[in-house]
């Protein structure tokens, strides 16, 4: 019964989905070229750091992995938010993209986990089927 009211309510309800506010159109409020360049410089520095890290000896593999992933995510986010304007653009776009990313991340993470790739990172030894091509063992 509760819904009876809302269902025939004045049209101004249920207009919720109009996510994009045209009064903040996607083309306004964009950074200036200079800002873009600053962003790019930052990205370049991070990349350099990544490569440098590759040559650094001594740190544990896991630590390196961690740092690399952090830097990767940072770069990813910056390009998406500034160059792809997600920062300024409609929520809907962001939702589409983020849904894709999270979904991909989630499911593939589970897949990899079921294969136990985290257990011994790197040196996984595949089970070789003991093919009876090796002559059958007599008693």
């Amino acid at each position: 019964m509760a819904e009876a009211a809302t269902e025939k309510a004045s049209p101004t309800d249920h207009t919720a989905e109009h996510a994009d506010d045209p009064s903040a159109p996607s083309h306004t409020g964009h950074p200036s070229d200079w800002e873009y360049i600053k962003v790019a410089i930052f990205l370049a520095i991070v990349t350099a750091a990544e490569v440098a890290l590759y040559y650094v000896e001594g740190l544990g593999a896991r630590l390196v992995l961690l740092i690399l992933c952090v830097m990767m995510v940072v770069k990813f986010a910056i390009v998406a938010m500034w160059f792809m304007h997600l920062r300024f653009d409609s929520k809907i776009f962001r939702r589409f993209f983020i849904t894709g990313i999270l979904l991909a991340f989630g499911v593939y993470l589970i897949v990899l986990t079921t294969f136990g790739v985290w257990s011994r990172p790197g040196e996984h030894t595949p089970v070789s089927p003991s093919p009876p091509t090796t002559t059958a063992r007599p008693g």
Partner: protein
Amino acid sequence: MSGRRHRLLKCSGVVLLLLFLVACGSKKTPQNSLSPAGEYARTIDNLIDPVFIVAAVVFVLVEGLALLFVIRYRQRPGPEPVQVHGNTRLEVGWTLVPFLILVTIAVPTIITIFKLADEPPNAVNVTVIGHQWWWEYRYDDLGIVSANELHLPVGRPVQLKLQSVDVIHSYWVPRLNGKTDVVPGRTNHSKLKAERPGTYIGQCTEFCGLSHANMRNRAVAQTPADFDAWVKGQQQAAVAPAANTDAATGMTLFTSKGCTGCHTVQGLSKGAVGPNLTHLYSRSTFAGSMFDLNATELRKWLHDPPGVKPGSKMPNLNLSADEIQKLIAYLETLK
């Protein structure tokens, strides 16, 4: 309301009866997964039955209501119906109730999963190797290699290491345990246990090509004594037949025709493509338990294996009737 409960009870009674029918008669249905003959299968069965009952109740409820409403509320004189748009309490209700029901199913399920996963103590270890389209068994610590018919002692668990040399198969003896896929590149594990002596049949259940339907297997449960006897027998080498008998010529043919290239006859050959024939006649069936083991079937087989078993990896060797006769004579000595 009470009327409905009444009907509900009646119907679930009917369903239980049906369940009984399904379970009964393992004579008529030797591959029946609902007539367990071993601990593990029984564990599963004990889990299925209550689940089926829950399902039956839900079934009766839903179908009953559907029927009731369709009949009760068919178009009838009178005003238009009241426009009901929903009822939050009800909807929350029939979200929660199924949820709770499912939780009560999930808990025992997960417990059983782990119960069935752990390795049994003092088990007979057998490596089961899937081939297109037959099964090879290796009792590694007993030094036995056999095919298609798995022997196991009653009351003692058998731990299976499952491997494949070609495609994915699935090993299944319904009355002893559920199935487990046999995946090339990995080793899967399963286990069997029989309560009573007897022959329990099964077959490959993962589509594995042309003769998937003909890739069958048996589990022969024996009293410990019989089992030990069988083990002794299997561990013997083959005895060469007495000179200038048919069997003897058969044996020479067995080499000259290249059988040795694929088959192991212990003491004679070390072929590994086909089943080990050393104790062929200790088995009751052959070629993936497709045929009963006897001269007539063997004759058909040797005449044209792929002809009688589509795609069989044993080629047609164009043997003459006479050669076949001799070969069979030889094979019959492989007790």
